[in-house]
């Protein structure tokens, strides 16, 4: 052991080290899960005081690597050095002792407890056996909050806070534990553009105060805006260590994916046809009984993509559920008008229909929760490919006895057409990567030849290659005259695909704008800001033209 601890001496040969010792150095980290190699001899070197981006596609091993650094996952092999010293990190307690803090992608906060309780948890004033000193905890939180310029109400319950504020609590929590090395795992995924700018300002200030920051992301623009250096991972391996100033989005994307990627969606301007989906004054309640939709109204035309933008939790999920029959509307009306096929011109009132009935009248749905409501993970690709259409005469005799050979053929066709990478259609869907799972859903839903396609978070957790593919298919469907309702928390996705953008805030549509609207303008709308007169006129013009 003693000899091993002396190995940092060997580093003295590294000229870099003398100038700026690494805050964190991870060497040859390997970690395999059953069936997956998450980290394959990964190296990471982060200098003191820098903001270091760790980028890669989903499944590239970024989070695993950081969970190893924070002690949540034990590596199979490899060495970790913190400030030049070899360390063993057996659990988060060791990481905290080494002044490492982590802000997780899914916040590690306890909703029914207060801000102060969450921050001091585990290191409460007085130690474990003492009575909880509420006043002292408040004081400590307020001091911390003042010192780093991160205002917060220590007595608020976490469940009442916005996502942005919750993230602030997470950062304060790490700072309370005297973190000098701060890991942030995809911190901007849930933030509005404004909240993102604020976060970046905070991180720059922290970095100036000497904190080392490791920033995990797959958004290339953020890498360029914020960071000093970049480590790129692909499929569990290092593929690049770059200086941010000397690189660009295309180069990073190429390293991440392993080939040239089209970052922009190519599409012609839309040629909208007649109205397919008409929604009037829609109201609905959330699971908790709150008014989730408060009078939503909009139309989607054939041959256009209407994007629904907004911070998550402003009623988008409920809207999709109501439209697809999974949640009951408390008031309002929704109709589908066929614009093509045998029933062209026929209008159906889908208010109060069951999910099956909604499908039958020509609505296809890519659900936001792929694993929860899109697929039966343990079932085969074949069976998932006909999920919801198993009564079609082509798949079942008398709507009851499955025609297995027919189904297998169908699945093989979809897998081919939609480039699902799998050795067999008999495999359980669980065995596929996230991107390929999503392609199974997209294939199934497109193949139904719907009048309206509802795509909720269609590229969530999907790698860049599959994103490119799904985007292209969506635009193809639009050009084929389908009406498409796109709901996404990714503003870039909304802006690059949509022909019109409806912004939702607290259960209402605050405005419908063109995709040319600036990010600032959209961000303002997403936080409930009043739409400017200019954009109203613009919108009137845009809809008037169509």
């Amino acid at each position, binding site marked *: 052991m003693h000899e091993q601890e002396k190995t940092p001496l060997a580093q003295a040969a590294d000229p870099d080290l003398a100038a700026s010792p690494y805050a964190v150095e991870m060497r040859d980290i390997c970690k395999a899960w059953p069936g997956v190699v998450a980290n394959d001899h990964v190296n990471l070197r982060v200098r003191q005081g820098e903001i270091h981006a760790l980028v890669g596609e989903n499944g590239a091993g970024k989070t695993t690597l950081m969970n190893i650094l*924070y002690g949540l996952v034990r590596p199979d092999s490899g060495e970790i050095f913190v400030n030049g010293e070899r360390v063993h990190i057996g659990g988060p307690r060791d990481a905290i002792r080494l002044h490492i803090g982590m802000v997780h992608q899914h916040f590690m906060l306890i909703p029914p*407890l207060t801000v102060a309780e969450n921050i001091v948890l*585990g290191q409460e004033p007085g130690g474990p056996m003492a009575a909880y000193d509420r006043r002292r905890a408040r004081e400590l939180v307020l001091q911390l909050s003042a010192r780093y310029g991160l205002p917060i109400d220590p007595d608020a319950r976490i469940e009442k806070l916005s996502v942005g504020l919750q993230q602030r609590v997470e950062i304060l929590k790490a700072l309370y534990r005297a973190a000098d090395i701060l890991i942030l795992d995809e911190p901007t995924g849930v933030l509005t553009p404004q909240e993102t700018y604020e976060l970046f300002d905070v991180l720059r200030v922290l970095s100036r105060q000497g904190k080392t920051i490791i920033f995990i992301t797959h958004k290339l623009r953020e890498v360029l805006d914020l960071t000093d250096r970049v480590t790129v991972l692909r499929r569990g391996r290092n593929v690049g260590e770059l200086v941010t100033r000397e690189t660009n989005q295309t180069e990073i994307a190429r390293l991440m994916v392993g080939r040239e990627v089209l970052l922009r969606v190519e599409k012609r301007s839309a040629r909208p046809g007649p109205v397919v989906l008409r929604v009037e004054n829609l109201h609905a309640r959330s699971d908790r009984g709150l008014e989730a939709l408060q009078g939503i109204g909009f139309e989607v035309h054939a041959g256009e993509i209407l994007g629904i933008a907004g911070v998550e939790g402003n009623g988008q999920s409920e809207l999709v559920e109501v439209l697809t029959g999974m949640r009951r509307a408390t008031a309002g009306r929704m109709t589908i008008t066929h614009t093509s096929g045998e029933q062209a011109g026929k209008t159906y009132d889908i208010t109060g229909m069951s999910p099956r009935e909604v499908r039958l009248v020509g609505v296809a749905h890519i659900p936001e929760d792929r694993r929860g409501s899109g697929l039966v993970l343990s079932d085969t690709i074949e069976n998932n490919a006909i999920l919801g259409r198993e009564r079609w005469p082509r798949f079942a005799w008398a709507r009851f006895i499955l025609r297995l050979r027919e189904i297998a053929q169908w699945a093989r066709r979809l897998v081919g057409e939609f480039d699902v990478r799998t050795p067999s259609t008999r495999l359980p869907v669980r065995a596929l990567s996230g991107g390929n799972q999503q392609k199974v859903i997209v294939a199934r839903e497109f193949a139904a030849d719907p009048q309206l396609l509802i795509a909720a978070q269609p590229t969530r957790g999907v790698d860049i290659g599959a994103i490119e593919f799904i985007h292209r298919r969506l635009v193809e469907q639009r050009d084929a005259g389908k009406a498409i309702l796109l709901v996404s928390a990714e503003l870039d996705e909304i802006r690059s695909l949509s022909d019109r953008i409806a912004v939702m805030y607290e259960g209402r549509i605050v405005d419908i704008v063109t995709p040319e609207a600036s990010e600032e303008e959209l961000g303002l709308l997403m936080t409930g800001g009043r739409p400017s007169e200019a954009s109203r006129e613009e919108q009137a013009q845009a809809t008037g033209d169509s």
Partner: protein
Amino acid sequence: MFWPIFLRVITSGDLWQASLQFAALLLLPALGGVISERSGVVNIAMEGMMLIGCYVGVAVTLASHSVLVGVLAAIIAGGLLALVHGVVSIHLKADQIISGIAINVAALGLTNYLNIVQTGGQGIPSLAFNLRLPVLSWGPLAQLPFLGQVLFQQNVVFYLAIVILLGLQFLLFRTNLGLRIRAVGEHPQAADTAGIPVRLIRYACVVASGLLSGLAGAFLALGVAGTFNPNMTAGRGFIALAAVVFGKYTPLGAAGACLIFGLGLALSVRLQDTGIDSNLLATLPYILTIIALIGLVGRTVAPAADGVPYEPGSAE
């Protein structure tokens, strides 16, 4: 015929003394349930842990001629059985309901078997009074009309239960350790990343529930019955479980529920003079339990991670 007797029963000190005694008997395993579930481990095995406490309490008291040693042994036996539940559900991450059922069934069989083997099928005779848990009489206070009998002539474990009740309420909601226990039960990942030893806390809480159930068993066998009978807990551990839910997973709430159930149990005994069939009366506390649960469905919220084994690193 019914009403005069009912009135006499309901106003008698006997009824309320018995109610409180039965309530205390339910309260101990209920407090065990509260602390275990608060830490995120579902424990439905209080019944079995109590029964083991009954048997070990009596057996060790007889062997050692010391009721104190018997009680300590009962507590430890309950704790050990809980440790089994802990290993199965925390370490091996098995289904906590199945583990609980297994423990209940095993405890029933084991105590029956040992009872038969030890006494040659004769059963354990009534214990001498010096080998029972004593009733504490609070001097002049015990002489008060009504209240004296109800509050100041109870078994020593009754007063112990009240001390434990208040202590546990304080521990859970007013101390740093309590904050950690609640954090572990709500969101073990969050607790782990905050540096809290999730498994250790869960083990401690599960074992505590066993210690309390074992004490309750000793109370029942050595304080109330003065002997051991097969299956003498008669579902009390399950009523305690209902009290945990009914009491919204708080010690004081559970105590309130135990009072109601205790009254039901006492009534079912005392109302036998009214001519209502005794078998029917015996169902009263259980019917009360069901009514209480139905009336509260959807209104009690269990700790968010209750019953979910913790997998470190599963946050991805």
